[in-house]
């Protein structure tokens, strides 16, 4: 199985013959090109032109993050999977208000369901979350995109407020993004950036166009379909990773730097990434495929489901945790 490569140190990627090397001050490492699915650069990484063309040819997305762990951009290979029909139909579902609302609604339903499942898991473990669960349950997802967006906002708010009950340490009051003001905010920002790029790599393996989105506006600078998809999976991938890291004392204050805001340091990032990666590789039995699939693969399947919806093959239903 192909796995993403995470580079947290500074260095240069270069190509000699058909081998990719990562060179830094102390080391020259070979990188097995056929064993990696994407490269995520958290350190200052330079790419020599030979390395870039090689990576593009092999269809490997390279994502760059700034020193705060925010996503900056990607080196995105030319699109190898191209079907005019899918892109035309995808745009049709954006332009038609009713069709767009159907998909957007499914996305929010998925978010709501997955957040509730996550909360109920902790509620069973004895955390008192009844009030928040009730608040979310009574949210009725309807209306136009703006109304659904604000509904989604309220769902997340309730979920975030419940963090103080779920988490054993690190108080968390309010989601603050730029810059993250406390430990939990910085973990959320870092985790969400990671998931965004994971989704982008999975979308690259489908025929969907990553810029044509339904809940978010496609006019956002980023590949906004990736934002749509990421939200559905945040509760089970990012938030569950954070709960584990914090409640099992795997992260402490020494893994953060406190400057203008609060950020994970290199060691902290490494711990987070390895746990995140484990989460992505966790497998579950799929109901209709009748085989085990990883959480990461679920993201791609979500893409397939949307394609089937566009092709009038099968109506889209968003991913809802069934276990």
């Amino acid at each position: 199985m192909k796995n993403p490569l995470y580079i947290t140190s500074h260095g240069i990627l270069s190509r000699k013959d058909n081998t990719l090397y990562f060179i830094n001050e102390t080391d020259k490492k070979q990188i097995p090109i056929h064993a990696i699915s994407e490269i995520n650069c958290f350190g200052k990484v330079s790419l020599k032109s030979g390395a870039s063309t090689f990576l593009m040819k092999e269809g490997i997305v390279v994502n760059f993050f700034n020193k705060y762990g925010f996503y900056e951009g990607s080196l995105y290979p030319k699109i190898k999977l191209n079907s005019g029909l899918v892109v035309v139909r995808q745009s049709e579902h954006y332009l038609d208000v009713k069709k767009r609302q159907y998909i957007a609604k499914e996305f929010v339903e998925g978010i709501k369901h997955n957040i509730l499942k996550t909360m109920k898991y902790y509620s069973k473990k004895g955390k008192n979350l009844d009030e928040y669960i009730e608040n979310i349950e009574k949210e009725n997802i309807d209306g136009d995109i703006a109304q659904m967006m604000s509904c989604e906002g309220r769902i997340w708010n309730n979920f975030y407020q419940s963090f103080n009950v779920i988490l054993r340490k690190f108080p968390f009051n309010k989601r603050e993004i730029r810059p993250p003001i406390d430990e939990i905010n910085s973990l959320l920002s870092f985790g969400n950036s990671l998931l965004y790029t994971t989704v982008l790599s999975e979308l690259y393996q489908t025929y969907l166009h990553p810029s044509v989105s339904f809940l978010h506006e496609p006019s956002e600078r980023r590949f906004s379909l990736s934002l749509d998809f990421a939200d559905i999976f945040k509760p089970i991938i990012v938030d569950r990773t954070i709960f584990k890291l914090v409640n099992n004392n795997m992260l402490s204050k020494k893994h953060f730097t406190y400057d203008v805001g609060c950020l994970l340091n290199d060691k902290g990032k490494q711990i987070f990434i390895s746990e995140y990666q484990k989460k992505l590789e966790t497998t579950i039995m799929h109901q209709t495929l009748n085989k085990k699939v990883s959480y990461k693969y679920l993201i791609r399947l979500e893409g397939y489901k949307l394609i089937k919806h566009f092709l009038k093959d099968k109506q889209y239903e968003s991913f809802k945790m069934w276990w």
Partner: protein
Amino acid sequence: MKKEDITGVMVQYYVLCKRELWFYIKQINMNYNNDDISIGKFLHETSYKREKKEIRLDNMVFDFIKRGEELVIFEIKKSSKLTIGAKYQLYFYLYNLKLIQTNIKGILVYPKERKKEEIFLTNEIIDEMEEIIKGILEVSNLNRPPIAKNQPYCKRCSFYELCMV
């Protein structure tokens, strides 16, 4: 799509899976990560090295041919399992060529198994081919993919996840 645009691959898909045919015509291809396809390609490149490969004629590509008293069209296959599609691909070539030359046959070769299978055009097959061509044109006009049916051979298909999810 026109009758002249029909290729051997389309005939294969038509016989085995009309849904995959629809995707193929709409240029949606899921085969980019399939090992079986890579093996087949490798086998195609490494076997029968002395022959001139990939003879193109209109919309047909023959793996290789031999000319003597009769014309023989060869098709290389990885395994003798599930060759019905390949068989009809050859029938399709013979059918197209029957106006040019009458003395003609097809041979399916399985280099890995050191086996071969001869194929001749009969009147029944000619009728069947005409039906198939009509059917392919019908599928190409469908507005949505034909419904997925779960067959035993679906498991190894690279469309499996797309169809079943």
